[in-house]
């Protein structure tokens, strides 16, 4: 239901109608829409953890899909779409990184809001997110690809251009570091009498 406000940042019913009418135009468009619906959320999360910036992550996702649209004919198998889109997004992020310095991760700036789980769970997630944000990118990225993207170490190795053994070492160390940080947080909480 649309209102009479500006609504420029959200898609309105009429915009969706435009999308619907245009998707009827070609199967290529339908294929693209299916890709966007299936992968935009996952790509956004990946982009977020890559850039530590919500707005930048949205831009990255949009630019990734625009590039994907331009070369959609190069996508032979739908099952390979996730890896293909991930590669485009990484390249896009690298281009951005070349153009301007990326923001450093400041835990105070991280958006830790989550509307789903209970307050306790939200607190746990916030602690874990802060810990993940502290990880060196070389540990964080393969971990995100593995946990969020569901990629195997072999697939991650291909994506990152390193050996499978190196990926296994990095994700192993990532988990070790997270555990160490979380243990530290919990000890800190115990010292201060926090639950």
């Amino acid at each position: 239901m649309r209102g009479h406000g500006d609504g420029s940042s959200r898609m309105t019913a009429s915009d969706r109608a435009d999308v619907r009418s245009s998707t009827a135009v070609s199967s290529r468009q339908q294929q693209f829409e299916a890709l966007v619906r299936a992968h935009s959320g996952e790509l956004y999360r990946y982009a977020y953890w890559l850039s530590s910036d919500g707005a930048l992550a949205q831009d990255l996702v949009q630019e990734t899909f625009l590039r994907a649209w331009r070369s959609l004919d190069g996508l032979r198998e739908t099952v390979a779409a996730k890896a293909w889109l991930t590669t485009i997004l990484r390249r896009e992020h690298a281009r951005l990184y070349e153009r301007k310095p990326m923001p450093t991760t400041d835990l105070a700036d991280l958006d830790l809001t989550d509307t789903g789980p209970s307050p306790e769970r939200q607190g746990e997630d916030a602690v874990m997110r802060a810990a993940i944000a502290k990880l060196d990118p070389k540990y964080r990225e393969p971990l995100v690809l593995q946990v969020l993207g569901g990629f195997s170490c072999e697939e991650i190795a291909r994506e990152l251009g390193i050996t499978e053994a190196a990926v296994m070492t990095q994700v192993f160390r990532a988990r070790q570091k997270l555990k160490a940080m979380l243990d530290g947080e919990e000890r800190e909480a115990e010292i201060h009498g926090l639950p």
Partner: protein
Amino acid sequence: MDCLEFRRLLGSEPRVTDPAARAHLESCPRCQDAYARAQALEARIAGALAIAVPEGLADRVLLAQLTEARQRRAKGFRYGWIALAAAAALVVAVGLVVRRPGAIGQALPDLVIAHVNGEERGAMDRRAPVPSADVDRAFADRGVHLASVPEGVSYVHKCPVGGYPTVHMVMPYDDKPVAVIYVTRYRAPGVTNFERGAWEGREVPIADGTLVMVGPSAGGFDRIEHEWRDALQGSAQTAAGSP
């Protein structure tokens, strides 16, 4: 596989799909405990990584893509036109003139019809007039100054129609709804009447944009067109017959 190998693998690939590792897991209670702890940690990591996705992200991506696709088509047309112009120059040399209508203009009626069909349910049925200030503000936000605001606008909203910024209104005429959409930044080459299914329509270039009217009949089009000519270019120019 021994416990040390299993623990290394568990830290790298907690899902543990390797058959040898699965076999070890089934036979080793200590590694089963480690496996349970690893799964708990994985669930915690996965939950933390799954940050909220901004609402409407997919829709925004699709809208950006549609806009780009449309711009590319228009650009393609421009390049095509240049080639055509070059060819036309040769044709002119032997006394012929080649003319091609605008590709954007051909698409506009279809875009508008699709938009009207997808607009908010009930928008076309509204009869109570909205305040003139709302109409004036919608145009101002689109960068268009109105000399006056026609009466009888029962719905107004700033809509993107395809890639075009527009002001979408409804103006009932003789108790039948007429969708009136002013497309900014695109001026149609001339007045065109069209029909699409149960809809009749007319597009009219006015000022720097195009007014498109769509309704079940063309009954009110002349009056509405005249009122919006006055509003968009001033009554003096309308009287003087400005195109």
